[in-house]
């Protein structure tokens, strides 16, 4: 799975997610990616999220919308992403990761899986990582 979130100079927010799905999946299986609120959500009032990970687990907790709900309550992108991923791990034993932005242009790349390749560009600086803590 791959994904992106962005805020433009007008403050408008968008997300995009695309996937080949799950290795050796059943024919016709649709995971979280195509489902609004699960594989992506964007709202100028709260932010945007693009997830990746255990698709069925992401759908059970509607991960993107869950994280944005926490952000609408005042959490930072990092806090809300960690809480959403922790909820998914605790309630349905699902692992994954997200990239998240808020309307102020604050961002997070967080994951509970072993690794997640990510990169963020802002103000002429490129941040990136693969392993936890980078």
């Amino acid at each position, binding site marked *: *799975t*791959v*994904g*992106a*979130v*962005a*805020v*433009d*100079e*007008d403050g*408008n*927010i*968008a*997300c*995009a*997610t*695309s*996937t*080949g*799905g*799950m*290795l*050796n*999946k059943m*024919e*016709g*299986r*649709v995971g*979280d*990616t*195509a*489902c*609004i609120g699960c*594989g*992506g959500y*964007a709202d*100028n009032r709260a932010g945007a999220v693009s997830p*990746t*990970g*255990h698709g069925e687990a992401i759908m059970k907790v509607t991960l993107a919308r869950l994280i944005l709900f926490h952000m609408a309550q005042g959490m930072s992108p990092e806090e809300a992403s960690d809480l959403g991923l922790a909820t998914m791990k605790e309630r349905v034993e699902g692992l994954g*990761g*997200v*990239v*998240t*932005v808020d309307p102020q*242009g604050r*961002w*997070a*790349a967080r994951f509970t*899986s072993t*690794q*997640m*390749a*990510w*990169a*963020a*560009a*802002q103000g002429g600086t*490129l941040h990136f990582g*693969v392993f936890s803590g980078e």
Partner: protein
Amino acid sequence: MLPVLVVHGGAGQIPKERVEMASAGVRAAARAGYAVLQGGRSSMDAVVEAVTNLENNPSFNAGYGSVLNVKGEVEMDAIVMDGRTLASGAVSAVRNIANPIQLARLVMEQTSHLCLTAGGAGQFARAMGMPEVPGDSLITEYARMRWKKNLAPNANPVESQMGKMG
């Protein structure tokens, strides 16, 4: 407002020999998407540019390089959403399309629906003039190797589980 663009290339366990490819791929996609923002275009243009870049990179499980279903075929899903209007478009179980993210955007912009699936999504792609590509052209040797390995009766359960990350 300081524009920002963040991308990911998927969660899971990346084999050691593919870590640098994955890292280089997300950096390239972030640069491509951010260049769109720097050019004064919209966040929607930027995320579609970044994800198109990732779909075209065989290091990732989307577009060219997608994992295979049990029959050894590619079936892809994609979604876009615009935070200004809450407009959204998605496709699921779509085949023979190089860039499903661009098809998802067309669903958002050209229909009153949120998601088109399988054959209907393919029919819509043809109606929109989106070129079809042979299914095999989206399959990499790496994806075929993982598919075969996972079919084996003695498949390593840890490696099999890694593939269960969508």
